[in-house]
């Protein structure tokens, strides 16, 4: 009987140890990830400022930073994985929707539709994203290191009031600017007749996406305004602007 009890506590200790090491590995990985992402977006910010100072215009700026932007924005898909395996306590669906909307903008709008890459609205949302992501990732990094400077916390919870609407405007204007080119080229569209008996019109799809900004962004925005906890925790994910 006594040995049975001992076995029980030994097993408990083993599982506790396993949990602790798993927690340590998770923290280490997340710290590395957040530092890497902060660095990436900083690089992007610096590149943009340098280009503008050198050339004096925003034309061609997108082409210059396109690869870096695509790389770091796509890398953010990992965050969905973090939520799925539970090391970050945010809903998978919320994170998924936010990351997907970013990926959609980068790959299916600005990357595919060359003619709009010099629009001012593109610069607008890229700048907004850069500022927001630097703030967000540095917030997470400092949080994980348990040393959060007040100004980062302030920035995280207050900048989005301005950044958020600006970002939405930038994205909407960009999609709107792309519409004539999409219509003319018929890209990503499938017309009837075909053997699958289905059709898809990218032009109308983009219009629906624009309309969906109203309910979707409104609901995620509402969700995040309740996330104003005085005590920041690991995965508190303010809506990605």
């Amino acid at each position: 009987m006594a040995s049975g009890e001992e076995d029980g506590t030994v097993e408990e200790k083993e599982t506790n140890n396993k949990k602790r090491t798993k927690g340590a590995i998770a923290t280490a990985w997340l710290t590395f990830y957040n530092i890497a992402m902060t660095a990436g977006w900083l690089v992007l910010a610096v590149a943009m400022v340098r280009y503008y100072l050198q050339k004096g215009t925003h034309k061609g700026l997108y082409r210059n930073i396109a690869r870096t932007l695509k790389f770091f924005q796509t890398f953010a898909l990992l965050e969905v994985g973090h939520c799925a395996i539970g090391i970050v306590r945010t809903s998978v669906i919320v994170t998924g929707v936010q990351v997907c909307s970013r990926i959609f903008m980068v790959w299916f709008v600005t990357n595919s539709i060359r003619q709009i890459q010099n629009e001012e609205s593109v610069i607008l949302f890229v700048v907004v994203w850069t500022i927001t992501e630097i703030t967000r990732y540095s917030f997470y990094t400092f949080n994980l290191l348990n040393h959060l400077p007040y100004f980062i916390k302030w920035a995280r919870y207050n900048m989005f009031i301005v950044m958020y609407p600006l970002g939405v405007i930038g994205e909407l204007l960009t999609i709107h600017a792309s519409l004539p080119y999409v219509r003319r080229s018929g890209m990503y569209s499938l017309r009837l007749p075909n053997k699958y008996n289905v059709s898809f019109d990218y032009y109308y799809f983009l219009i629906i996406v624009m309309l969906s900004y109203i309910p979707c962004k409104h609901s995620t925005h509402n969700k995040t305004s309740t996330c104003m906890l005085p005590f920041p925790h690991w995965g508190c994910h303010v809506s990605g602007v």
Partner: protein
Amino acid sequence: MDALALEAKGAKSESAGASAPPKPRPKPPQKAKRIVYFEVEILDIKTREKLLLLDKVEPTSTILDIKSLFHKSNAQWYPARQSLCLDPKGKPLRDEDILQELPVGTTATFYFRDLGAQIAWGTVFLIECIGPLVIYLLFYFRLPLIYAPKYEFTASRHLVVHIACVCHSFHYGKRILETLFVHRFSHGTMPFRNIFKNCSYYWCSAAWMAYYINHPLYTPPYYGESQVKAALGIFLFCQLGSFSIHMALRNLKLSGCKTKKIPYPTKNPFTWIFALVSCPNYTYELGSWLGFTLMTQCVPVLFFTVVGFIQMTVWAKGKHRSYLKEFKQYPTLRSPILPFIL
């Protein structure tokens, strides 16, 4: 006053004695001359405010009786809308549960939660099914404003389109008739909000499918007549199967008693699948839609079939789990929805 009425009923049923009571309640023992009446207290689950105190409640009353009494004093909360639990974090009590069989003293405290406006299951099913039936026909007859004006009120030149219309209408017509005459719903109601969710899904899916199948530029199946014939065979077979299962399930609940029973294969060959599957109604439904997909060779139909399959699998797994929990001797060969697979 209501407690008095209950008391009077109690006295009457005692004197009625041998005659069978209308509800299957345990008869109070003839010897005991005194009935220990219960006191029932209903508290709001969130505010813990005392909503109602009933004294002299008969021990053999059911939860439904108590809900009816509560409804009398709070007219806006009809019994279907009430959820009563013994424990704020516990599961709601069933309507058939009897007061004296609950783990309470002579004073029972129930926690009440308002489930919101409710709508009868049968009503939801009917509205869900009448929509697609009508909507598909609007597309089939090519009403104005759907396709280009030159196609208004024209008919498709492909036979498969006509067959598809008959099948689709038959499927939903059968569902409507089953809702009216065959199904026996164990839950009376569902939240009112569900009707918007369910109906928009069914109606929009039907419109999306019907648009392409009845489109002037519709492409008939790749393998032509043999594909259509095979698909039609599968569809009809599964429709018959689905009907047989619904009838078999209905016959399980015939006697009106609420005890759950395990469904078994009957003389009808279509029910022999009960040996391998817990929820063959979903299996046959999947089969019907696969047949329809094959018949029309249309991606929106495939999409609808896949989404339906995922949802039905979730339901089947839940049902299978509850069967396993309820019956110790539940046949081990059975899977939730697909024999041996899922």
